[in-house]
């Protein structure tokens, strides 16, 4: 079943719909947020076939949706959003992904680009030293099972109590860095073993620590509320729950595969395996997923501590403190309340490669952000740009308070490795003032800017669609990768 442009109905310049009747089993339509310029690339892979499959999930509400950074995944497309009815709609580990609570955190410094321009190479090397990265690379902490359970229960708070984080940071993290439903007993010993030495590590693949300068301000009022100004130096951290999260997803997918017949669920793709949230298997997964999400928030809090150590080592006291601007997940399921057909309802929102983008007046937000909406952090590729956006009322109405999560891949890793000379790319980036520290040339080639869509077009789409509004564009000046 290949989907063509003619199968889609254009609703707006930035919104396309595959009608519910397109294929048997779809319970809702499938919606694609993309400018026409992006749509051809989206139609090149199987993203939309996967999106149509998501529309068959029992209990799905309104529509299955993808953001403009969508690309083919396994089961769910990456960049997908699906909300199911609470409590008897399904929860699907495939709708969250293996890297549970992969997400982004932004730290703001007091320094201007001009003040650190000549120290960037030194800073990138120090960040590479302080923040462990790469495959199979452990961190400075080795957690006992007892201590691991505390991390899984307390999330970022654990780092604070152990002196690796700041109490003040918690207010600036989605869900304050702790999902209360987490139950460490629902996480297998294998998962705990995989994660026991991974706190404070970024891993490999598309994960990174990136130093940026604020290049453009689009919304001065929101930027002021977030404490952002032109020329300011900031740090982006992109990573998740590491091997612990991967194992949680693997364990519970297997359980769900066996349990599905009991609930009479048949699906077009095994990787969409799901059960009702209210079922014991659904509850077990949700509580384990929350625990893995807490691990990820604790991980990013520890990495912040490591970044602060690197910052202080390079700039001393004059560098000041790195302030946490915000931390937001893009691979997660949350129980949230949304307005559906004029009625306020609890729903289970799956975001797989999609970012929460809650609008103004959201109680969870720190006071300073409440009038402008939640910060949304969109990393681009290492040679282009990243963005800070703000959540909107319109995203609450249209996409269950969700927006895009990055630039989105457009080239396979294999092709990128064949097309890109990593050493040459590192040299070119350096000539542009971007210092790259990486564990392997192969990793650099796989993540080369050419492998990604144009982040400016992706962001332009969500801005036009009002799924988030542009606040600031960041330009990378140093990148640390595994």
């Amino acid at each position, binding site marked *: 079943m290949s989907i063509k442009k003619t199968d889609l109905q254009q609703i707006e310049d930035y919104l396309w719909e595959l009608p519910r009747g397109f294929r048997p089993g779809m319970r809702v339509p499938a919606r694609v947020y993309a400018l026409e310029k992006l749509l051809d690339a989206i139609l090149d*892979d199987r993203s939309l076939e996967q999106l149509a499959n998501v529309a068959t999930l029992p209990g799905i509400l309104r529509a299955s949706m993808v953001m403009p950074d969508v*690309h*083919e*995944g*396994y*089961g769910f497309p*990456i960049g997908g959003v699906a909300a199911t009815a609470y409590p008897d709609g399904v929860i699907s580990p495939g709708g969250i*992904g*293996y*890297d549970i609570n992969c997400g982004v955190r932004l730290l703001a410094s007091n320094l201007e680009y001009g003040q650190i321009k000549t120290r960037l190479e030194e800073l990138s090397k120090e960040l590479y030293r302080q923040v462990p990265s*790469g*495959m*199979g*690379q452990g961190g400075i902490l080795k957690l006992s099972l007892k201590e691991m359970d505390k991390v899984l229960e307390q999330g970022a708070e654990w780092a604070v109590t152990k002196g690796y984080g700041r109490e003040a940071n918690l207010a600036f993290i989605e869900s304050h860095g702790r999902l209360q439903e987490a139950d460490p007993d629902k996480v297998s010993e*294998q998962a705990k*073993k*995989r994660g026991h030495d991974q706190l404070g590590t970024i*891993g*490999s*693949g598309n994960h990174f620590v990136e130093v940026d300068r604020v290049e453009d301000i689009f919304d001065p009022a929101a930027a002021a509320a977030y404490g952002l100004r032109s020329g300011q130096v900031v740090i982006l951290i992109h990573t998740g729950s590491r*091997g612990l999260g*991967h*194992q949680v*997803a*693997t364990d519970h*997918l*297997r359980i769900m*595969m*066996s349990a599905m017949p009991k609930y009479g669920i048949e699906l077009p*793709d*095994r*990787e969409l*395996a799901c059960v009702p949230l209210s079922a014991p298997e659904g509850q077990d997964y949700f509580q384990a997923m929350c625990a893995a999400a807490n691990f990820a928030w604790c991980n990013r809090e520890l990495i912040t501590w490591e970044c602060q150590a690197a910052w202080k080592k390079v700039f001393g006291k004059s560098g000041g403190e790195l302030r946490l601007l915000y931390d937001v997940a893009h691979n997660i399921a949350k129980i949230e309340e949304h307005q559906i057909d004029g009625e306020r309802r609890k729903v289970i929102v799956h975001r797989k490669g999609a970012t929460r983008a809650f609008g103004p007046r959201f109680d969870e937000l720190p006071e300073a952000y409440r009038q402008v909406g939640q910060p949304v952090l969109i990393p681009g590729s290492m040679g282009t740009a990243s963005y800070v956006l703000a959540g909107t009322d319109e995203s609450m109405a249209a996409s269950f308070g969700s927006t895009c999560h990055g630039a989105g*891949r*457009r*080239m*396979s*890793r*294999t*092709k990128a490795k064949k097309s890109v000379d990593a050493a040459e790319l590192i040299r070119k980036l350096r000539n542009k003032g971007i210092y790259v520290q990486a564990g*392997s040339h*192969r990793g650099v080639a796989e993540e080369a800017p050419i492998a990604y869509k144009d982040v400016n077009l992706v962001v332009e789409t969500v801005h036009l669609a009002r799924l988030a509004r542009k606040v600031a564009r960041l330009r990378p000046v140093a990148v640390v990768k*595994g």
Partner: protein
Amino acid sequence: MISIEYLSHIADTRLRLRADTLEGLFTAGFTALNGLIKPEACGDGSSPLPISKAVSVQSADTTALLVDFLSDVLTAVHEEKAVFCVLRLLSLSATRLEALIEGKPAGGFEEDIKAVTYHEADVRLNAEGLWETLLIFDI
């Protein structure tokens, strides 16, 4: 005969496995997984393999059995920080497997496979009488 073919996928690793026996298909999956994690690590088979683990899997059908087995091997890779070179299948039926896997410390990985997915997996006998399936590793 076993065959491992690498296919295109935008973000992950997609393979087609073929073998003339079901045992061969499981061996192909095992070899592909460990070969990606640390290419050439097993060499000519002459180096000692000090790590040995028993693997026991029961699944709903043969496709799930292959994916679940490889997931267990991947868990062992990460738990032991090892690469596994030898698969000894002690018993294999359509839904159950007992095996011993033998390997050695990897000294770092070259590919971080997050998971073995069920997406597109479909173990079947093809028109040529070979066992065949697609597999996608999340990387």
